[in-house]
């Protein structure tokens, strides 16, 4: 396909909406067969890059499928992303995409929203098929105190 920034941006935003709506099948539809996902944060306390999720496509699909079996915070998240940079490699039919995000949590009880996390998506996008697809997503968190945590990936 021809590289089109608008299509790539739409992919990033669709990935946020799919997770916001807990539509995990729709999220996986946006990912290539060799999709991988990693979430990390840098700790200034111990001066280490810390990997808090690291999954291939099979593993992250299993993660989604087992969610109903777990006790989880059910207060929904809203992912608000802005695509900062799209760098297309026409030869390899790939694009590197950097997006900034803020994630808000809205309480089921009362509806109060609060900022939960900020960070960036570093995505590799395949441009080989009829539509762009996520090949790799690396979530780099700035926020490290996530309270009691959350079971659904960002």
């Amino acid at each position, binding site marked *: 396909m021809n590289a089109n920034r608008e299509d790539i941006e739409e992919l990033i935003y669709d990935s946020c909406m799919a997770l916001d709506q807990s539509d995990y099948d729709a999220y996986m539809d946006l990912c290539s067969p060799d999709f991988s996902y990693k*979430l990390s944060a840098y*700790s*200034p*306390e*111990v*001066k*280490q890059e*810390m*990997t*808090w*999720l*690291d*999954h*291939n496509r*099979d*593993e*992250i*699909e*299993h*993660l989604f*499928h*087992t969610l109903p*079996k*777990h*006790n*989880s*915070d059910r207060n929904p998240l809203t992912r608000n992303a802005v695509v900062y940079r799209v760098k297309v490699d026409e030869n390899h039919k790939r694009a590197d995409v950097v997006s900034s995000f803020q994630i808000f949590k809205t309480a089921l009880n009362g509806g109060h929203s609060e900022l939960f996390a900020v960070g960036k998506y570093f995505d590799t996008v395949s441009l080989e098929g009829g539509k762009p697809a996520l090949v790799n997503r690396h979530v780099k968190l700035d926020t*490290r*105190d*996530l*309270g*009691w*945590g*959350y*079971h659904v*990936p960002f």
Partner: protein
Amino acid sequence: MSRNESQWTQRPTLPMSHYADPAIYYDENIFAEEQEKIFSKVWQLAIHESEIPQPYDYRTYQHPAGREVVIVRGEDKRIRTFYNICPHRGNLLVYEPSGNAKKLVCIFHQWAFNGKGECVDIPRDKNGYQDRVCKNDVGLKEVRTEVGYGGFVWINVDDNCDSLSSHIGGALDYMLPELEAEPLQTLWYYQARLKTNFKLIHDTNSEFYHDYLHYHNRVTGMLDPKSGYFQRKYTAFPNGHASVGSMEVKYDAYKGGGHSELGWPELPPQGWKLVDLFPCITFNLRTSVLRIDSYIPLGPKDVLLEFRALGLKSDTAETRAQREKDAATIWSPFGRNLHEDLLASSGQGVAMTAHSDPMYVLQAREEDLTIHDEIGMRHYLQEWSKRMGRSSADPYAKSAQAKMA
């Protein structure tokens, strides 16, 4: 049958060692007393030595007795701890959580201190102080510090405390081969602040009956008769510590974790050892990763949680990545188990308040000290009661007053 108010607030017909008054989880005065009688007296695990590997490295730490401290590796490589306060005008000496500095220099008036806590510079000292204030008189306040049990840095703000080994006793002997097989390395540091009582979170490490909370633990242990889950036994040690016997974790039973066959020196394959130390430290070695919990209570319903994941200093980048992945499945902020533990402890914090009319809390299960026996909590609260000078089941001494009346 539901209960009326009188029945709801009635003491259980059990020994007092088998239930707790909920006030110990929310009362401001009891918390202030815990700071004085417990946290100002006991050894606290502050950091791991791998976090300050080089001379002049430092780490700050918020001690639960209320002191801000800075932990420094000196030029002589010895690790010392000082109050993080400039003796001149009471400013913080160090602002960042970690760093490297040949001298700790106060930004306010540039007073400077070396890694032994000695004052080495006072700008224009003779002009202002003549000989009335000398560098020798204004050193930093040093805090008792020991390094041990796998390279952890332990501190005690009581100058007259007993040694660390006398506090730990034999509680960590069971895990010492694994802790001392090779030098360790901190992989993660996760800090979270929650609105609950520190003892409620420590409880989740002191009793395993709550594995009903964890789908992961049920399928990888409880539901597999060959895992040895129900044979795990508690051992109580002096000073409120306890250990839990090992089992064989069946990670294959949980799909989607991507857990490896990677192990740990001296630990049986797929093994799991756990030691709880009074008042709020846990050593948790599960197959390939050592997790350390150390909590910093800030108030009766306010706690700063510190979670560390450790691997081996000798790990290659690939091995380290696998250890992190193994740990992430259950123990990261996105992990299956940690989130569930913290949800439950936070729910207790919401439900048990001074005005919510909570009932007595039970820790009454007796199963021959095996995994669902609540001896861990009973043993903990026995030590708590000894240090606080009254029973955790009756912290306001109501039963004694009732008897006298």
